[in-house]
């Protein structure tokens, strides 16, 4: 019997198809990605069975950290620019164009108004280290109320979301809710994580 000749095949594979798939997936993830804004505090939101997703636009978020500090953030650069202009007019503290720009790019902040310039002067990478004491929200100096009110004037469609840490003490939450009610915001959302809790009839 003659020897069966096994033809030597090249080991190189056509990679084109694989590249196509890889880049298709890459494109998808690039477009679907929304970078998480760097928060000054990490908040561990409580879980609930609520299933309403948080809207992306027209929202301001009041974050309450577990040690009771209050942070404020708002979506939309143009609204934030308007917000800081309005706030600077009210507080009679002038802000330079550069600071206004910085403010519109900043995600969440939690400093009294008097320290805001200091915070804006920091580089955005350094801000995480800045000791943010929280926005004053007590009755003697309720800056949070100003922020909420001016934010609503800047964007009249804005909705309020409260993102509290699960270990935040209730009095702080009560304070924030009372402030909201004071400013005639009677409808707001609590941000929660989804759990799969069995539902009973």
């Amino acid at each position, binding site marked *: 019997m003659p020897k069966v000749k096994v033809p030597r095949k090249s080991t190189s594979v056509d990679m084109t198809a694989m590249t196509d798939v890889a*880049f298709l997936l890459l494109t998808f993830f690039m477009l679907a990605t929304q970078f998480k804004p760097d928060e000054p505090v990490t908040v561990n939101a409580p879980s609930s069975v*609520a299933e*309403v997703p*948080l809207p992306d636009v027209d929202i301001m978020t009041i974050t309450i950290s577990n040690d009771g500090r209050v942070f404020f953030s708002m979506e939309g650069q143009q609204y934030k620019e308007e917000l800081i202009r309005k706030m600077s007019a009210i507080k009679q503290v002038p802000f330079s164009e550069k600071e206004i720009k910085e403010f519109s790019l900043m995600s969440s902040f939690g400093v009294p108004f008097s320290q805001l310039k200091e915070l804006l002067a920091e580089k955005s990478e350094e801000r995480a280290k800045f000791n943010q004491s929280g926005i004053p929200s007590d009755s003697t100096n309720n800056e949070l109320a100003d922020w909420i009110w001016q934010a609503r004037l800047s964007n009249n469609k804005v909705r309020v979301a409260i993102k*509290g840490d699960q270990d935040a*003490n209730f009095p702080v*939450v009560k304070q924030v809710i009372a402030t909201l009610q004071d400013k005639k915001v009677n409808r707001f959302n609590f941000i929660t994580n989804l759990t799969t809790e069995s539902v009973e009839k």
Partner: protein
Amino acid sequence: MAEIEGGGGGHKKGGKPKGKKMSTRVDFTPMVDLGFLLITFFMLTTSMNKPKTMEINMPVKEVTEEEKQKVKASQAITLLLAENDEIVYYFINEQTGEPETPVITNFSKGGIRATLLSKNKELLDKANNNNYDSIPILREMYKTNQIKEDEMKSRIAGIKSNKDALIVVIKADDKAKYKNLVDILDEMLICNIGRYAIVDISPLEADLIKTAMATSNSPVTPK
């Protein structure tokens, strides 16, 4: 694929320019490597699950006493959120108008949820109102296309506006955590309670928590 004419410099020997055919194949392996590296990066940075929200409607603050709805005593339950994830609840006695003995419970399944569900059922049975629709189940049915959106909305509205159902008054103590508030609002959703209110706690009730805690040496913690 595009053809690339390889080898342009064939004039040395004076003869015909002999275009040397070079392979047009390119090694794609590094490109794939790069592609997958970037995919991995984007996959890890993407946060796919969006946060969920719970909507709260608070009453308008400036309501006069007359405008406030008077709650029928037999229909209401007051939940006091205390520290250490405990709840003190009491009913108001219909005859005397005095609060009944407070009971301590917790957020476990057999705790506050069992109380709310049984009390709600009892009230609905008494009123012969068999509205046992469940908000989460209706939502689920809508999602799986068993019912239309309008039907879901009207049936949920039916649950919420049921005149005979339990009314819950939520009062959180200063030592309570934010988690407790969200949990109890969650229970409202699970137990189909459409009418509830978050009210500030009075000093009287804060004392009530203290006495209730003090009197119960071994708190009842049903599991």
